[in-house]
Structure formats: C-alpha cells, structure tokens
C-alpha cells in the first residue's frame, strides 16, 4: 500500500470514530440540547476527516475542490439546521424536560 492509501485508511478510520462518538452521544446524553450539541459537532468533524482522507485518492485537483465544496456545504447546512432546531426547541420546551418524553 502506498503512503496515500495508508493516510486514507487512517483519516477515514478516525473520522468514523468521531461519527461513532456523535451517535453514542445522541443515544446517551440526558437532555435535548446536549444531544444536539454532540451530534452536530462530532459529525461535522468526522465528515471533514473523511473528506480529507478521500482527497488523497483523487487524481485531479478539481476533484479535491469538489470534495472541499461538499464538506463546506454539509457543514453550512448542518450548522444552520442545528441552530434552527435548538431555537425552536427552546421556544417550545423551556425546561427541556418535555423533550425526553418524545425520545
């Protein structure tokens, strides 16, 4: 395996670990906002690492630009949506307790 392959496997594996951490946080944290926090932070970083890892496999520079654009758009969308969800949850569930009933 060449250096590029080793780097790809390493970075993608670390990215997957972050995704796993985010999912564990989703299942285990006690209240709504901490779950949202764990999910978005870990997933964005995980996606960045995976995109970086895959970038070593791409031959042409335009492909790398496209990967960076994909990561940027995903982070933009995830961050905006997370803020909107958090705000609407705050408006409806001021103490965060009712959120747990719906899981």
């Amino acid at each position, binding site marked *: 395996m060449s250096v590029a392959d080793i780097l790809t496997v390493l970075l993608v594996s670390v990215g997957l670990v972050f995704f796993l951490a985010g999912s564990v946080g989703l299942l285990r944290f006690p209240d709504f906002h901490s779950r949202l926090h764990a999910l978005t932070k870990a997933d964005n970083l995980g996606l960045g690492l995976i995109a970086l890892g895959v970038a070593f496999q791409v031959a042409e520079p335009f492909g790398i630009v496209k990967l960076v*654009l994909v990561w940027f*758009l995903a982070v*933009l*969308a995830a961050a*905006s949506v997370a*803020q*909107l969800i958090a*705000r609407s949850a705050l408006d409806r569930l001021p103490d965060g307790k009712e959120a747990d009933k*719906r899981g």
Partner: protein
Amino acid sequence: MSAAFLLDAGLCLLILAAALLAMAGRDLFGAIAFFIVYGIMIALAWVRLEAVDVALAEAAIGAGLTGVLLIGAWAMLNRLGVPEDHKPAAGWLRLVAGSASGAITIILVAAVMALPAGREGLAPMVAEELADHGVSNPVTGVLLDFRAYDTLMESIVLVVALVAVWALTPPAVWGGVPGLRQHTRPDGVLAMFGRLLPPIGLVVGVYLVWAGSSQPGGAFQAGTVLAAVWLLVVMAGIHDEPPVSSRLLRTVLVAGPALFLAIGIAGLGVGALLAYPAEYAYALILLIEFTLTFSIAATLALLVAGRVRRAP
C-alpha cells in the same frame, strides 16, 4: 467472499432495516425521518450499481423532495389537529396482507433467480448509435434522443400534476398565492443561509445540466437542485411565492415541454417525430435540456409549495 460483496450485503441489510422502520414506526414523524434515510441508502445502492444518474435523481427527488413533501404534510396535519392514531388493523387483514405480500415476494424472487446469466440488454446497441447523436453520456442520450418520447410525456405529466394540485383551490382564493406565509427573523440564521446557499446552488444546478451530456447529471437532477434553491429562498423569507395567475410563471412552466414538443414536431421534417438532424443534435439536445431544467425547477418547487391558500 470479497469485500465488495460484504459491503453490498451490509447495504442491503441497512436498506431493509430503514424500510421496515419507515413502515412500522409508531411515531409518524419518526417513520418519515426513516423514509428519508431509506431514500439515501437506495441512492448508495445505485452508486454501487454504477448508475450514478439514477443515484443523483433518487437522492434529490426520491429522498429529498419526497421527504420535504411528507414533512410539510405532517406539519400541516399537526396544525389542523388531526389525530395520528387509529385502531390497529384487524388480525384477518394482517394475515391476508402478509400472505399476499409474501406470495408476491416469493414469485418475484423466483423470477429474478430464473433469469439467464450474461444478459447484455440494450447497452451494446446504445453504445453503437451514441456516437452519431451528439452526447456521450448514454443515459442522457437515451432520455433525450432514443426515448425522447417518454421524456416529453414525463415533462407534461409533471405540469398536469401541478394543474391537478391547483384544481383543489377553493373559489375564494382562485388565482392566488400558494403555500402559507413564512415568518422568518430577518437577521436570523435561516435568512443568512437563504442568502448564502442560492448562488452556490444556482452554479451547481447549471453545472449539472451542462455536464450531463458527458458525465452523470441531466435536466431532472439539475431542475431539482434549482427547485430546492427556490424553496429555500421562500422559506428564508427573502421572496414570496408568485401568484399562480402570473403570466410569467405560467410561461416558465410551459416553456420546457412546449419547446420540446415544437422541436419534436419539427423533426417530422427530418424523418420522424422527435428526430434530430445529425449536425444539430448536440445543440438541440442542450437547448431542450436547459429550457426543460427551468420548467422542471418551477414545477417541482410549486408542487412542494402546495395548494393555493392566499388571495392574490
């Protein structure tokens, strides 16, 4: 067992699990969320089958737009106070449904396994003829040239579905504005997102239809991206939906199918309906695709916006 086969087997299990949760989830919103996940898994399956055009269409239309439609419907039913639960289906109905579905699945599996191996299909024929017909992406060639008749009918079906949705308008608001009024904070995150994403989306959409002639892409995928951009602009409160009686709107909706039909009828002069003269084939296909993209984008955006609710 190769790694690729294990990957595909894992993907199939995920697809079945997501479909099961989409069908059987007790919470309707959860079921809709799992349906969107299911749609994205199916798009991954298409990528594994090396059918990237279909994967793009499934992810954008099957998972994305259908998901938006379903969530919007769920929110509307919630707002109307409609109960979600009902008495569960009777035991005999479950038995009949279960045996019918089981029988159909078994028959289909038997049919699939009985097919001879090494089928070539129509791919060699398409590959032979493709060189004379302008485009190099075989799927675009089939969609807009070899089976152009189907695509023409499909674009007309889209417009007819939109007319059908508009036909449900109550007389008081006839010709008015579709969808509910959006209330967005003008300095909030959604407004910023709605200003940042549309230019990028516009470039991506135009690139998709331009690149569709030689790489995976095409009019329907690009039209969906542009429709999503428009929906975001409306949701972010930057611009309201136009009234359905607007002449400009109706021209945009009809322009794509009408141009397609006109070029098709003009093709009668060259040989047959929807035949393109060889030296103009690429230009004509590109012209049809671009006009069709904007018509499709407008039609899809209005289909998601829904029924007319406000007076003009």
